């Protein structure tokens, strides 16, 4: 089977704006989770998130005209994609080709994005109009054009990162935008792998992006019992929930032939992916880890690997009671007593929702290259429900150059990805 290689990676989150910087923060045991600054959370039941410090839209996307057409989540997505594309050198290479060959190259270059989908803040753009209309929809309609940004709908599109990457870099091949909550970013990588194997494209930039830290979103997650009131401690006996982060990750993935053509340095390889549902509805999770087990099994079969080949596991580890416990069950079911070192990153830079899986993959590649399994620094006492799980507060050593990255989301979705570092 064609080898599918990684030639570019980019990420931004509260822990840093480059993969190496984020890994360094994780390895140092640094958490970026702190008091939310975007609004006053004084009386809030959930006050902590991992916001990107000193957020500067122009540092994310230099083109100011574009800022009117996109949102914060799109800014970080475009930033990460730009970093990955830059590192891969594919656009620069394309631009050296004669026009017909360059056009063909663009047609064989795809974009697949995992995006958060809906948010609440965009709708607040209508609040001034609603006040003006005083409950009269007739007046609302009449005053609409005088009050609301004419580009409102375009700013709201969940597929903005996809469209604007295409326009900015002239990529015109196969594409998709996945809006299935947290698994979106990781599924983008899995779909890219499948598309490249099926020769639908020669190279694809896969992206995941989300900026969920907005007041209404925090309230809902809190109300559903998903948010920690204290410290995010995956797999810990005292864990009490998750916390949001914001950010984006991107990987340029291509056939080996496409990378060789321009002599691009290879960062790693995408080996296999799996996806499975538990059919439980939006929020419920099975205790037996069924969906995750099947996703991992599928990824292993897809890669032609056995559990013994896996050198480290980067767990979803979101810090909620139900998810972590069932994840531990799933890992024991797949690996038995032969678990490689297990870790997770959300304790450090929060739950990035649609960006989580792909940012964690980017950091995982950097960790594999450094031959380190960073510890879960907030771990104090392993939950007996997670007994046998090979997590640690301090660093471990991967037992091979292969990592398994796990991701779970609303709608009972479970995703698993296997990558190898070069």
């Amino acid at each position, binding site marked *: 089977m064609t080898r599918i290689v990684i030639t570019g990676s980019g990420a931004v989150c509260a822990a840093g704006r480059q993969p190496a910087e984020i890994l360094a923060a994780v390895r140092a045991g640094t958490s970026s989770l702190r008091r939310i600054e975007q609004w006053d959370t004084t009386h809030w039941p959930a006050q902590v998130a991992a916001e990107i410090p000193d957020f500067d839209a122009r540092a994310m996307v230099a083109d100011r005209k574009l800022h009117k057409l996109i949102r914060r989540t799109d800014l970080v997505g475009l930033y990460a994609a730009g970093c990955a594309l830059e590192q891969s050198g594919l656009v620069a290479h394309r631009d050296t080709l004669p026009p017909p060959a360059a056009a063909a190259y663009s047609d064989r270059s795809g974009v697949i994005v995992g995006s958060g989908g809906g948010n609440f803040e965009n709708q607040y753009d209508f609040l001034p109009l609603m006040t003006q209309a005083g409950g009269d929809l007739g007046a609302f309609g009449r005053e609409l054009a005088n009050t609301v940004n004419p580009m409102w709908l375009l700013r709201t*599109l969940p597929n903005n990162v996809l*469209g604007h990457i295409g326009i900015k870099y002239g990529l015109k091949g196969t594409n998709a935008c996945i809006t299935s909550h947290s698994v979106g970013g990781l599924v983008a990588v899995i779909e890219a792998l499948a598309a490249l194997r099926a020769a639908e494209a020669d190279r694809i930039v896969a992206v995941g992006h989300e900026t969920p830290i907005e007041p209404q979103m925090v309230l809902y997650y809190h109300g559903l019992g998903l948010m920690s009131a204290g410290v995010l401690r995956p797999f810990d006996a005292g864990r009490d929930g998750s916390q949001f982060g914001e950010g984006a990750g991107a990987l340029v993935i291509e056939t080996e032939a496409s990378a060789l053509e321009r002599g691009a340095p290879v960062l790693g390889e995408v080996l296999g992916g799996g996806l499975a549902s538990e059919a439980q509805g939006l929020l419920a999770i099975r205790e037996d880890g069924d969906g995750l087990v099947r996703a991992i099994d599928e990824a292993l079969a897809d890669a032609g690997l056995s559990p013994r080949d896996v050198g480290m596991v980067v767990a979803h580890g979101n810090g909620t009671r139900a998810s972590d416990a069932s994840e531990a069950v799933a890992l024991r079911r797949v690996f038995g007593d032969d678990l490689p070192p297990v870790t997770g990153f959300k304790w450090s830079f929060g739950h990035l929702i649609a960006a989580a899986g792909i940012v964690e993959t980017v950091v995982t590649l950097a960790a594999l290259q450094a031959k380190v399994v960073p510890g879960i620094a907030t771990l104090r006492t392993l939950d007996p429900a997670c007994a046998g799980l090979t997590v640690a507060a301090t660093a471990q050593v991967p037992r091979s150059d292969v990592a398994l990255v796990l991701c779970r989301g609303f709608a009972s979705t479970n995703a698993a990805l296997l990558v190898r570092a070069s």
Partner: protein
Amino acid sequence: MSAPARRRVAITGIGLVTPVGNDVATTWRALLAGRSGGAPITLFDASGFATRIAAEVKDFRNRLVTDRRLLKLANRSHHFALEAAEQALVDAGVRPTAETAPRWGCAVGAGMMTADFADLERTHAHAAADGTLDAGLLLSDDAANDPLVFCRGQAAQGLALLTRRFGIAGYTTSVHTACASGGQALGTALKALRRGRVDRVLAGGFDSMISPIGISGFCLLSALSTDNDTPERASRPFDATRNGFLLGEGAGFVVLEDWALARARGARIYAELAGDGNSLSSYRITDSPPDGDGPIQAMRAALADAGATVDTIDYVNAHGTSTLMNDRSETAALHAVFGARGRSVPVSSTKSTMGHLIAAAGAVEGALCALAIARGELPVNANLRERDADCDLNLVTTPTRTRVRAALSNSFGFGGSNSCLVLRHPEEVDGRPGGRGEEAGP
């Protein structure tokens, strides 16, 4: 070393909830007759908007899915989705069991709307009376603390409701590329089946943007027809006087099934879902270029993927939104792809009748192509009175009986995603008819 034969995929069930009918038979009759779903908006007071018309789903109630606990979690578009999906599964005569659940997939194109307007009004009254949100007041706001508001507004909620209702435990995904979403959902499902990850997929799209916010978004872009006095004529794709699209709503679902499995159980096969083609126009967020670049590559990719030539395409269900730019660009693309056949291949945009179903459009229209093949009938391109020299196509103006060997369905979205599907007559696949129900008029 030769590659193993690629799996073929059959469409064995169809369900539709559209502005012209709440089931397949009613919808199909309206599409043949060109009976428009356009009418004044009734869902809210639209009197102040530049556009006061839409193609609403009419007299809808959930007939097949009546689980009240489930429906409480569903927004308007999810209601349509559950009904259409159930229709498709009943039609296919097969559904997931505990044993087969992991081998079933679900791929949906979901709309982009978040909270319902009524919920935003509650938050406005409580936490933003002066027009600016006071985040502190959200703490005591009913809507902001109502988990049902949250669940109904989640992008993944449609997928969650469908997979729970039907017990689908394999590959599941929810995609959104604006008006290309539904087509991409079917294409994604096709690819998952070919990879062997699943044996059957419930695939479709659902959307409803006929709300004060949804209409506002399109009005602000001047994308909608403002023919408020003649709603049934407002959508006239490829007509020289077209002036924007007619917003519709609804859902369309198909059951996709491994061909051999479908034949083995004696299923009625409407058509083969034979090819999927995707491209990005990478031109402007709202348009494709006038020369059709972008859609051209997607159509060619779909044809190549299906192993089909333009000579075998006997029907094109155009994206045909009735906007000035789309119809011109799509015509140019059709001519580029079809060459000499560009003037003779029958084309219609069913948006002329049912309006634009946005994220549901591509799925509904893909299903319509399967119906055109199975029934040997072409739905009309309604409201064509004044031909546009820039849209020189063989538009279907009267219902036409003809054998359709293969059909092409086009969907192009804001953001530049283009999704094209090729469907093929069962006899062209294995020389056997599709089975029960074929050619039967409603």
